[in-house]
């Protein structure tokens, strides 16, 4: 009953926010132009611009509202009668925030004729959410946003380089690629040891597991004011 109040509380913090809106515009423009050029130059630019540059920054802007200091978290725990409402409030607000950007990118991709990219783009929502909520359980603003950016931008960049090599990748690299860089993994699927469908299912399952895990950790966590 009290959860919608928590969702509203976190959404108020998130939208409308001028920086998020500007970035949303850049994200759509980047998607549009790289997909327009993709018929001639391939999807590499699209992967770099969307998966490695704009989506991680958009994700950081959404995630930055979750990474609170311990004292503010303690305040919110008391305000919302416990960690369940705080976790669900943060999760729902982040989901709605991500949904706007990610669904617009997937729509632009679909209308450009790249329907095979829709699922990996939408997969960004559960994978980003699982990373956010897991990091939020332990880290504050600086540590959380930095770690999120590294995991969603620097690691996918490294994976893209790994997947550019002529030989097939190991199972570990394949799994990490599907979780952290599903768009790049789809484009480079020939180098992976798992099919795209299997990769998406595993990435979704890992994200779900991380969400349940972080929820349980957050509920039982000790706080030091």
């Amino acid at each position: 009953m009290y959860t919608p109040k928590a969702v509203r509380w976190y959404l108020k913090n998130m939208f409308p926010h001028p920086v998020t809106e500007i970035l949303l515009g850049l994200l759509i423009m980047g998607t549009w132009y790289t997909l327009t050029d993709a018929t001639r130059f391939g999807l590499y630019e699209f992967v770099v611009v969307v998966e490695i540059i704009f989506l991680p920054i958009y994700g950081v802007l959404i995630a930055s509202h979750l990474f609170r200091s311990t004292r503010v978290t303690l305040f919110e725990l008391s305000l919302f009668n416990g960690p369940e409402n705080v976790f669900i409030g943060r999760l729902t607000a982040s989901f709605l925030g991500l949904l706007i950007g990610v669904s617009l990118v997937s729509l632009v991709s679909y209308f450009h004729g790249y329907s095979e990219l829709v699922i990996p783009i939408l997969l960004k929502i559960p994978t980003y959410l699982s990373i956010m909520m897991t990091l939020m359980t332990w880290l504050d603003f600086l540590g959380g946003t930095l770690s999120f950016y590294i995991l969603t931008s620097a690691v996918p960049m490294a994976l893209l380089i790994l997947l550019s090599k002529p030989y097939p990748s190991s199972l570990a690299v394949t799994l990490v690629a599907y979780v952290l860089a599903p768009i790049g993994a789809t484009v480079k699927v020939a180098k992976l040891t798992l099919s795209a469908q299997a990769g998406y299912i595993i990435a979704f399952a890992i994200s779900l597991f991380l969400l349940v895990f972080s929820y349980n950790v957050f509920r039982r966590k000790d706080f030091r004011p």
Partner: protein
Amino acid sequence: MIVRAENLGVKYGEIWGIRDLTFKADTERLALIGHNGSGKTTLLSVLSGIMHPTTGRAEINGWEPYRRKDKWIAIRYSFEKPDFRVPIRVKDLVETLRANPLCSNIDEMIEAFEIDRFMEERLNSLSSGQAQLCNLLVALSCESEVLILDEPTAHLDSYRAGIVDDIISQKNGVIIATHDIEEGESIADYFLVLKEGQKVWEGDRKKLFSEGIYEVMLTDVKVNPQVETIYRFGSTLIVKASREEVVRMFLGGKLLGVKKAGLRYVYSKSR
């Protein structure tokens, strides 16, 4: 309310925040007194259920707060004011509290704290005193079995500090940590003095004021009180004297005021 600790210890890495702490307080308002780093906030964290002890156990009315499933409702707390970096308006905080059926005292607190004056401000733009009032608003507006307050009047001016202390002193089931001797004496009826994570004194008001020790304020810092001085804080002295000697000094014009030493004396002993 019965608050009890048995061999309670909390360790941060290699350092003990509190160690081998044992006490039993049968009281409605317990004050934890101690200097910085004495373990007050650590003990409050355990009693508010947000932290498990490393050793031993703590109980409030027979239950261990950190094991209680409904602790977030049964125990309300206010730790030192949060560094609010959230651009949410105070009115949104008030609206959120109003939607909570457990927070029925919200309007009374808004009026007492004069929160109407900054209702349109955002939390991240409040002064430290206003932020502290918003912090206290959550703890004091909502019903609870136990109310835990860490330095509740820090950052507040003396006028508002007085209002807050008056509200707290009328509540039951209060555990407060404070540096402020006057605040502790005016609110609590049982006292626990801590030093470096261990107990140095505990007792009720009767025990606190039973010794023949007085706190006197000299008319001038140069006045010689001609009685045994235990501690000196400028023109305020803790002295050991008979009642007659103190009255004679007062009538002789050497003193501006006198009271039984109480908390200032036991606190001084913990220094």
